[in-house]
């Protein structure tokens, strides 16, 4: 028996061969990444009473996951304390990475009871709805509101809140807790220094920018790195020129939506800003923070943005800045909608997963959040409007927020709510935003930009892998 010793090289060679053969056999043994999904035990429901209209089990625990972003988590912690007064313990966690943390739990079927599905890392709600992962919030809407049992929750919400939570049907899946006013943001002080009024027509806008240029200031800047920021002023501008139906057509991915005259006019107007050198040099390459900083420093007068900017830019905003928002400047007197038309909508989405253990508890938590106490607390803490009607009464508001509130009141019914950005996120952010960015960088003409947007829209419409929605 001379050969029982194993030569090392031989061994390695053969082990490799054996490994190759053995490996596929292993594949069969392993568990699946998409396994599970059986769901977890639901907690027992309780009797529905006047004090407890959703029938929440008093002793069942509740798990809440909050996106710890611009709004922080304190407002939710405060609402949880209110919940704990009447019901079970709340397990609270806050993260910036909603998707990374929550997606595996959705797949496994053991999600928390409330998810604040927000931030750059949020989960695609449309896909979740498609997979029956989200509870319909109908019972919450029909429940009596916290402060006034004679009014249903649905009657206490700001206009468009329920709309925004719908995805192609009557069911509301998502509650957007905050309320955002988009528009052209400026500094009252800066305009006073220039001795100009906020421009109401495009000719006035060009005159203001020309005056600023003489002083060595730019008229405009925007978040070039995330060019969809341009749409915050552009979409309502288009609606103002051509009417709501143009935005509807864009949302519905219609074959000629972007070729509408008003879109072209709007693009040409903005392109003129670029052609005449009224846009801050370097803008196409800067991110939102940088653009806000330049604007705070007074290097540019106007910036398209949303009402979160006051909170986000508070570090760089000078004390005498007098931040304000205005509806988009119109084109001329032939516009379809009056000056004052704005884009405002509910934002900051919350959802209750369908497979959560304590679905009624999750809805009850949202009902508490929609009470006046919590809504005011939210506005106080994070300087943003909430989706609860009249919740800002008697609150001391910071200048930007006060101006947003005023603009919202003045707009009355002239509020447009484009849906393209939550129905077709990629189209809005990358393709439309990209076309506008290229135009504003002077790479393409307005006509080419229109064609690009239309082409992107057509491709999205033809793409079977994307779920389609329609305005009802």
């Amino acid at each position: 028996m001379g050969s029982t010793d194993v030569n090392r090289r031989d061994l390695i060679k053969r082990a490799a061969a054996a490994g190759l053969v053995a490996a596929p056999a292993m594949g069969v043994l392993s568990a699946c990444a998409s396994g599970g999904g059986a769901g977890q035990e639901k907690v027992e429901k309780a009797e529905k009473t006047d004090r407890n209209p959703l029938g929440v089990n008093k002793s069942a625990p509740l798990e809440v996951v909050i996106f710890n972003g611009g709004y922080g988590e304190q407002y939710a912690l405060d609402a949880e304390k209110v919940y704990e007064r009447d019901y079970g313990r709340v397990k609270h966690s806050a993260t910036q990475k909603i998707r990374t943390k929550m997606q595996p739990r959705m797949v496994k079927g053991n999600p928390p009871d409330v998810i604040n599905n927000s931030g750059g890392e949020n989960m695609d709600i449309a896909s979740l709805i498609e997979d029956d992962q989200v509870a319909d919030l109908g019972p919450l809407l029909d429940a009596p509101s916290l402060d006034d049992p004679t009014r249903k929750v649905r009657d206490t919400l700001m206009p468009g809140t329920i709309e925004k939570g719908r995805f192609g049907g009557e069911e509301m899946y998502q509650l957007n807790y905050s309320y955002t006013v988009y528009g052209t943001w400026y500094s009252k002080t800066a305009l006073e220094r220039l001795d100009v009024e906020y421009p109401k027509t495009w000719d006035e806008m060009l005159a203001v920018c020309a005056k600023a240029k003489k002083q060595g200031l730019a008229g405009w800047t925007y978040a070039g790195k995330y060019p969809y920021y341009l749409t915050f002023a552009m979409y309502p501008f288009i609606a103002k020129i051509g009417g709501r139906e143009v935005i509807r057509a864009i949302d519905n991915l219609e074959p000629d939506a972007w070729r509408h005259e008003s879109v072209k006019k709007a693009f040409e107007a903005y392109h003129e800003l670029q052609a005449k050198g009224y846009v801050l040099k370097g803008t196409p390459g800067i991110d939102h923070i940088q653009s806000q900083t330049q604007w705070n420093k007074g290097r540019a007068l106007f910036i398209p943005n949303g009402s979160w900017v006051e909170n986000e830019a508070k570090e760089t905003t000078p004390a005498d800045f007098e931040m304000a928002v205005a509806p988009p400047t119109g084109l001329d007197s032939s516009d379809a909608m009056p000056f004052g038309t704005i884009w405002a909508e509910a934002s900051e989405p919350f959802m209750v997963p369908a497979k959560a253990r304590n679905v009624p508890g999750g809805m009850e938590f949202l009902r508490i959040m929609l009470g006046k106490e919590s809504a005011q607390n939210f506005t106080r803490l994070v300087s943003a409007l909430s989706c609860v009607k009249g919740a800002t009464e008697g609150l001391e508001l910071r200048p930007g927020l006060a101006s947003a509130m005023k603009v919202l009141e003045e707009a009355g019914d002239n509020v447009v709510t484009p849906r393209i950005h939550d129905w077709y996120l990629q189209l809005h952010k990358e393709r439309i935003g990209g076309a506008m960015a290229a135009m504003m960088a002077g790479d393409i003409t307005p006509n080419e930009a229109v064609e690009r947007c239309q082409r992107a829209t057509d491709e999205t419409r033809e793409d079977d892998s994307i779920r389609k929605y329609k305005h009802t």
Partner: protein
Amino acid sequence: MANDVRAADRDTAVPTPRGRAETPPGRGLLLAAALVLPPRLTPAGVKNDRRYRSIDKYRFVCWFLSVPLLVYGIFVISPFLQAFYYSLTDWSGYSSRFGFVGLDNYSRMLDDSDFWASIRHSVLLLVVAPVVTLGLGLFFAFMLQAGGRRRRGEAFSGVRGAKFYKIVYFFPQVLSVAIVGVVWGAMFDPITGPINEVLRSVGLGSLARNWLANPDIALLCVLFVLCWMFVGFYVVLFSAAMGSVPGEIHEAALLDGAGRSTTFFRVTLPLVWDTVHTGWIYMGIQALDAFAIVHIMTINQGGPGNSTLVTPVYLYKKAFDVGQAGYATAVGVVLLVVTMVFAAVMMLFGRRERIEY
């Protein structure tokens, strides 16, 4: 498992035609059983079989390796296989429900212009980044080894402060890739970025660019950052390889009157070719990735337009932004194939005779 090893064995064991002819039926089974039986319980008939020797030889090793192999199989191999399976489904990634769609995802890929753009950019990086990085790495390493003035008694000596340079070059490797992305994003910033500041302050303001916002040069910026990140690693790697080349060889080259460049191309490079070859494959794989840099640094994560979109970023977007995990997995499978093809090509064409010294 046992069977597989035996199959692998049979190919390599010395065939014994005579022995095989005498084998009664069922002997094969017994032999297989011998793999799991302790020697004391093995039937004598089997023990006397010629093939039992090799079984005896490998039995211990196989048992010894079975646990690590099992772990490796479950955690490394099986996800690969699962990926193939998921690429044939319409899984959204958001629930455990999905349907089998066959090769639909792959046929969709064929006329997906964004996908092709991403492949183009990835392949461009794959071809160019290693050439630039390894070229610079070799140049710097050679300079550190042989670029200095000759001191007495030495055929070659490095530049003064070679050790310090090595540390400086290596520095980007120590930084997390996310930090590199953020830092270079700030460097390229058109308004406050140091690059434009420097250009303006030396009177070259006309050269100041919107680096990352210009679709014609954005990908070049990504390429530059990729190379900047890895050059230091290769400088250190090649320095080590060159350092292990015996001094006599360089002395001989010097005596024969070879200049620095001749020495490099005729002597040094052939001697460190093995290292270059390995480095090439590694850098190629790094260039195919480029995910973090593009994702963090560029406009709209792959823009402007899709001018810096690379395949891993496209995969990420499909998987997480639009909930098409099945399609994304198919893209991943294609990426795997591209990587494998690249590695195979390099293995086949980059090999040279090893020079022993």
